[in-house]
């Protein structure tokens, strides 16, 4: 029998039961919830008179709809956001679920605070009513987004009925060049494999370039697995992982820590494990990436050009290109370097961690945001905000003309009042360039924090390597 992949090891240890002809019943170790996709699930529990089976494995915070500049007095908030937050408070109180409230010391984007609190461990199953739950796969967890019906199932039973996914090994070897980051790796993978290319698969990122990355950078990569069509992406844990987890609030300690590490050390794909699909990427060939279209697979290197219809063989790809360029107001064959930007957004569960903010600040330092550009920096959590302030990053950003905001999802999905206007070009460190994603009619250009900071001070898309 061949060996097992990392995914198969984690999957197998969580199958509670497997009836003939039915999906597996998969146990969930940690369930993260937020204000937007949970209300209808709690309503379902109330209707059926069910309790939350494991409130101790359920963690709530508020991030999606909350304002990032109004403060915590919800009487000043838009009514719908206030209602969602009040609903979450009531649901958590009624069902005994711990809530990291915006009023508290600890709050932030659900996929930022989960790891920050040490909730995320290797070998766990983690779900959340949010597609970017794939982020937690950076720790060697099997983590994926679910719909609200499934949120209800996990609340009530701590389990989900799941069909086992197929495995897809993505090996990235080679040295990253100066100014080329984890964000560029994942944008390059998605550009190569397509936005739907990972449907039905769980990615495993491996190779020497992945092993060298910090946890923040690994989270950036796993975060965008869903943009490549895969519900989950995983990276085998190592010393970098353990170093990150150790000492955090929910991390094992004492004797349990040693036992945990011994177990975590077994979580890797065996040498003779067989993947259903494989691809490789040479990190040394990558350059900073920018998207030009309306799905995350429509990205190019900064020295490249937008494809022309003639360069695409597939009629569906050609149609997709034409629709995207029409919306984006860009032309085929055009280079992205030089494209003007109106708004810059540095934040989101993809790129709002300390490493991201430090990189952006290094570019912003001593420079000024270009005229007519609005630039926002939205830290992923209150802890990151505090740490960044302790390091003086807030002052660097403010002096350069960036707005320094409270923690939340903000302009990544523009559910709150952080919206780019119609037709505006947004240099964004977030994960989605869908039509209207960052405000009605907004046009997103996805890139790394380095590239977004460079765009902010230049007023256009530039190759950040020329500024380093």
């Amino acid at each position, binding site marked *: 029998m061949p060996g097992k992949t990392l995914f198969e090891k984690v999957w197998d*240890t*969580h199958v*509670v*039961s497997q009836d003939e002809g039915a*999906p597996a*019943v998969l*146990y969930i170790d940690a369930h993260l919830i937020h204000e*937007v*996709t949970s*209300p*209808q699930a709690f*309503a379902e529990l109330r209707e*059926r008179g069910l309790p939350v089976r494991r409130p101790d494995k359920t963690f709530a915070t508020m991030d*999606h*709809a909350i304002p990032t500049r109004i403060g915590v007095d919800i009487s000043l908030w838009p009514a*719908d956001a206030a209602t*969602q937050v009040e*609903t979450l408070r009531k649901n958590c109180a009624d069902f005994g679920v711990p809530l990291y409230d915006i009023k508290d010391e600890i709050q932030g984007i659900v996929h930022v605070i989960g790891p920050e609190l040490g909730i995320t461990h290797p*070998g766990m199953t983690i779900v959340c009513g*949010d*597609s970017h*739950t794939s982020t937690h796969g950076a720790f060697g967890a099997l983590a*994926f*987004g*679910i*719909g*609200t*019906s*499934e949120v209800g*199932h996990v609340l*009530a*039973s*701590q389990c989900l*009925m799941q*069909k086992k*996914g197929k495995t897809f090994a993505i090996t990235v070897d080679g040295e990253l060049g100066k100014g080329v980051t984890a964000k560029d790796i994942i944008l390059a993978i998605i550009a190569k494999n397509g*936005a*739907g290319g990972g*449907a039905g698969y769980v990615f495993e990122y491996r190779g020497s370039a992945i092993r060298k990355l910090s946890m923040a950078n690994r989270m950036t990569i796993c975060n965008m697995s*869903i943009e490549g*069509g*895969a*519900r989950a992406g995983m990276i085998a844990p190592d010393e970098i992982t353990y170093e990150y987890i150790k000492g955090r609030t929910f991390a*094992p300690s004492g004797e349990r820590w040693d036992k945990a590490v*011994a177990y975590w050390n077994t979580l890797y794909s065996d040498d003779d494990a067989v993947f259903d699909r494989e691809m490789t990427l040479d990190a040394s060939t990558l350059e900073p990436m920018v998207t030009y279209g309306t*799905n995350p697979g429509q990205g190019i290197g900064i020295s490249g050009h937008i494809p022309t219809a003639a360069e695409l063989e597939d009629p*569906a*790809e050609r*149609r*997709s290109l034409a*629709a995207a360029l029409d919306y984006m107001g860009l032309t085929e064959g055009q280079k992205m370097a030089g494209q003007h930007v109106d708004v810059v957004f540095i934040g989101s569960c993809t790129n709002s961690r300390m490493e991201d903010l430090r990189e952006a600040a290094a570019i912003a330092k001593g420079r000024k945001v270009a005229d007519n550009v609005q630039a926002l920096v939205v830290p992923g959590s209150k802890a990151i905000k505090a740490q960044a302030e302790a390091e003086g990053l807030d002052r660097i950003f403010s002096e350069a003309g960036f707005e320094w905001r409270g923690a939340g999802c903000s302009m990544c999905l523009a*559910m709150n009042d952080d919206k780019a206007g*119609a037709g505006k070009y947004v240099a964004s460190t977030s994960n*989605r360039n*869908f*039509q*209207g*994603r960052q405000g*009605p*009619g907004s046009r997103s250009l996805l890139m790394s924090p380095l590239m977004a900071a460079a765009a902010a001070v230049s007023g256009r898309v530039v190759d950040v390597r020329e500024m380093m």
Partner: protein
Amino acid sequence: MQPFTQLTTTALPMRRENVDTDQIIPARYLTAVTKVGMGDGLFSWWRYGRDGKPNPDFELNKPEYAGSQVLIAGRNFGSGSSREHAVWALTEYGFRAVIAPGFADIFYNNSLKNGLLPVALPEETVNMLLDLIEEEPGTTIAIDLENQTVTLPDGQQMGFAIDSFRKMCLLDGLDDMGYLLAKGDAIAAHEAEPAY
């Protein structure tokens, strides 16, 4: 959950790839705390102009496709956000099935939990259906879940695949909750044996 057995209906052609859930239901409709009213927001960026008036060029607003209960679209339908609101919007508006060459995983799962049947057919077949419907709006399509077939008025029939368990749930209108709650003992046994 509303059971799905058979459906004979006209179809709405949407010749677009990667229709993401942000298009199906934009984020501003996600501020609701119930499922009600999502149909009003269905495809709202495309359905309405900036002035709030219906965009006559958008498929959903064309009178020849009114009342269609099946949507036919390009590859990777339902990509992006996990929002089940996208499925609630489609079903509240009146859709009972979506035919496409492929679906995003989370959307596919969410559909099955709400009685919306996702039918994956080869891309050539989907293109043929789009051509047919665009040429002759009002063409009826018959979907039979029990036999896993899509049938055209001329008798042409195409089979589609679906997981046998999910098919049973759809036919009977069953959701996962009862099944999971009945596994209480197995769940407790699993909880009694942590990995470390």
